[in-house]
């Protein structure tokens, strides 16, 4: 158990997990990201503070805070398996759910939330979590699941999120063709914000498609008359006006179309289409001179725009109607030439896309260390096809498809790395096993020579002898070698018969020997205690060393016994994981091919639609030109306008 107390964290880090960009309608929208983010962090509460108590939990957070979700999940799963998160068991499971969600692994996230959200978290966090799950499901086209998740919400969310939730609900109703319910929901909606306006716009478009132009008009007019300085809302207002204007034109109400079209900003991204539509509104009323004014303004704009392409036909048409036949013929010829060149460029772009290079260029341009679901592709790589594909960027199908492809690419790279590592692991194991087998006989020989039992026996004998010395207070037994030798010499002198003679000289020597012996004995007695203590201490240390040696010996014996089992276990794991890597890699590559084909189909479909439109325009231009030539040849210039009609 790790006893530490690091940085204080809010338990509601979970909320941070769900900080997602508001790219739901506008994939390139940045402005709301901050709002949502602030809203989340702003809701931290002191009562929810928690403390990092397990280092491995902190390590998961280290990667999580860097938005490296994949390594964060791997570490969390590993730590869970090794029971290294005992102090954070509930939090770690919730964190795992949040990490899965951030990583875009919504199925596993949902499994965890289904299990945990019911009773283990505050209602606020629970509702928020279901909301984000609903959002990710919606974007991935899991409409029923998204609705089920929204149905689980019990209370209102924080303000910005509540608006987004209503938007999501309205969008689900629109997708399920429940327009009346969507209208009712939007009418009940208090406050005008980005989300409600997006919802209204989508609803209006859905109603137009349903044929209810007048019903759509009230909804789209609402968005189209917004007063705002917000650039995002300005763009939405332009879109609403444009959609309404064209809906009126399509419905045969050119006069009604003019007001919304006039509201579109002249320099905005939708001005081309508005100018074209405005011209058509006049043309439908037979006022071709006025129609030419907005159409001529389109002449020098980018031919990529379908409105500019169409204006290239509209201009000669109006000229013909105004009896400017030769000018009309010139314009038709220019249009045919321009459409031809553009069609060739689209063909080149289709070939490039079908070569599969496009997706790789996306990945090269957006090198991501990891795979967060928040990520959106904001720029297309430079290439012949990119100019045709810009509006694909705003679609969920394309964005989510790109994310899946990017994730698969990451998985393949990850598996590649592991494949190399596992090979190294195998070599490492072989080397270790070889070294072990080579050293084992030498080690066993050395161990065989080391008589540990004999050493223990000798130690016990020393113990007994020391006890005996102590019991008998045998100070001579603890004498140094010099003292012992001296004692021997004195004893030998004492035993000399000459010393026993009853002469003064012998008496003198006897006295000296007695003195020497006394001095020696005195020294021995004086040193006895300390010598006894030292010897006992040395003996004790020897005993301890012997115990340690015995323990080491047991460990060596154990290692000799278990090492082959360990090698076998590691080999089984390495050999088992290696084919698993190969199998998964093959499946990932297959999925990449499928995903790539899907993305290519989307892109080619888009380009083909553009090409088909150019083909239609070209045919129309040729027919009109042929009619002009025919009528010119027959001298019936006055009827050219009628022929065009």
């Amino acid at each position, binding site marked *: 158990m790790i006893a530490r107390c690091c940085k204080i964290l809010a338990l509601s880090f979970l909320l941070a997990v769900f900080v997602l960009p508001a790219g739901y309608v506008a994939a390139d929208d940045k402005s709301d990201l901050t709002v949502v983010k602030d809203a989340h962090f702003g809701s931290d509460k002191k009562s929810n503070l928690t403390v990092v108590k397990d280092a491995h939990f902190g390590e998961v957070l280290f990667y999580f805070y860097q938005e490296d979700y994949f390594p964060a999940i791997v570490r969390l799963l590993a730590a869970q398996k*090794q029971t290294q998160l005992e102090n954070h068991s509930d939090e770690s499971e919730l964190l795992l759910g949040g990490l899965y969600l951030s990583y875009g692994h919504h199925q596993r996230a949902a499994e965890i939330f289904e299990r945990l959200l019911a009773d283990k978290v505050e209602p606020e966090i629970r509702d928020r979590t279901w909301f984000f799950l609903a959002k990710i499901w919606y974007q991935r086209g*899991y409409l029923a699941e998204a609705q089920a998740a929204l149905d689980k919400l019990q209370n209102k969310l924080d303000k910005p999120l509540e608006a987004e939730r209503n938007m999501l609900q309205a969008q689900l109703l629109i997708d399920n063709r429940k327009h009346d319910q969507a209208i009712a929901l939007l009418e009940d909606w208090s406050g005008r914000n980005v989300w409600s306006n997006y919802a209204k716009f989508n609803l209006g478009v859905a109603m137009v498609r349903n044929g209810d132009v007048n019903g759509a008009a009230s909804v789209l007019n609402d968005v189209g008359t917004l007063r705002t300085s917000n650039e995002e809302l300005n763009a939405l207002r332009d879109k609403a006006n444009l*959609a309404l204007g*064209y809906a009126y034109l399509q419905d045969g109400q050119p006069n009604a179309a003019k007001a919304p079209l006039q509201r579109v900003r002249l320099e905005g991204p939708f001005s081309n289409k508005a100018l074209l539509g405005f011209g058509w509104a006049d043309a439908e009323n037979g006022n071709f001179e006025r129609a030419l004014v907005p159409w001529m303004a389109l002449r020098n704009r980018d031919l990529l725009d379908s409105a500019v392409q169409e204006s290239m036909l509209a201009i000669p048409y109006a000229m013909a109607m105004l009896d400017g036949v030769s000018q009309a013929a010139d314009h038709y010829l220019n249009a045919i030439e321009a459409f031809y060149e553009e069609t060739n460029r689209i063909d080149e772009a289709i070939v490039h896309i079908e070569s599969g290079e496009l997706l790789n260029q996306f990945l090269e341009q957006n090198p991501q260390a990891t795979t967060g679901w928040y990520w959106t592709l904001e720029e297309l790589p430079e290439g012949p096809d990119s100019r045709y594909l810009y*509006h694909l960027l705003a679609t969920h199908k394309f964005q989510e498809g790109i994310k899946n492809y990017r994730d698969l690419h990451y998985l393949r790279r990850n598996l590649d790395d592991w494949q190399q590592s*596992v090979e190294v692991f195998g070599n490492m194991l072989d080397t270790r096993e070889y070294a072990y087998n080579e050293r084992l006989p030498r080690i066993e020989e050395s161990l065989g020579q080391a008589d540990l039992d004999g050493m223990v026996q000798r130690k016990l004998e020393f113990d007994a002898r020391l006890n005996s010395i102590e019991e008998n207070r045998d100070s001579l037994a603890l004498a140094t070698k010099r003292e012992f030798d001296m004692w021997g010499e004195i004893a030998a002198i004492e035993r000399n018969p000459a010393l026993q003679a009853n002469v003064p000289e012998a008496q003198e020597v006897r006295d000296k020997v007695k003195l020497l012996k006394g001095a020696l004995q005195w020294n021995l007695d004086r040193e006895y205690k300390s010598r006894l203590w030292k010897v006992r201490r040395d003996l004790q240390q020897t005993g301890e060393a012997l115990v340690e040696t015995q323990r080491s010996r047991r460990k060596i014996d154990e290692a000799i016994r278990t090492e082959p089992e360990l090698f076998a276990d590691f080999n089984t794991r390495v050999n088992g994981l290696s084919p698993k890597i190969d199998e998964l890699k093959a499946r990932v590559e297959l999925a990449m091919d499928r995903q790539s084909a899907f993305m290519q189909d989307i892109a080619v479909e888009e380009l083909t639609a553009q090409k088909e439109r150019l083909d239609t325009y070209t045919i129309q231009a040729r027919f009109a030109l042929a009619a002009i030539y025919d009528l010119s040849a027959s001298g019936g210039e006055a009827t050219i306008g009628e022929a065009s009609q």
Partner: protein
Amino acid sequence: MAGALAQDAPILVSDVALENSQTMGAEADQARAEFRSLDEDVQSLKKEVLDLNRDLFLLEEELLFPANSQVAFFISMDVGEYFSLDSVNLKIDGKDVTHYLYTDREAGALLRGGVHRVHMENLKVGDHELVAVFTGKGPSVRDYRRGATMSFNKGIGAKYVELEITDRIKKQQPEFVIKEWE
């Protein structure tokens, strides 16, 4: 011809509408079903690769740093008002073992409470000395370099050592503390 051209206008309406709303009808349902089938495949692969990564991660750790000799060194930060971390240099028993440079993203993650496993080492049972040198920006954004030393005993089993950077508010200086965990 006017009619023919005017009839092209709905294409433009569709273009506008499609940018912000989902394609509708049978075609959309089919595209959605195709996307979903692909997505379910990707989900299943993600699950399997993550589980495999967990097993490989554990295998690698057990193989390279067996539990009985493993020592892991972690870096953490508390508050971080007086110190902005650039790098850490670790020396064990007089030998340089790692020099880690922190990116802004990593330093930010530490500030928010993340704990970084900066180094793993296999050490014998017994006493060892750790010297850690931290470099970065100190108070008043001046270059700052400080060392911390600790002796620790490696027993049987894995050991974790935390190098914690905290703020000493009274002195308005950072403090570098090395702690042992069991």
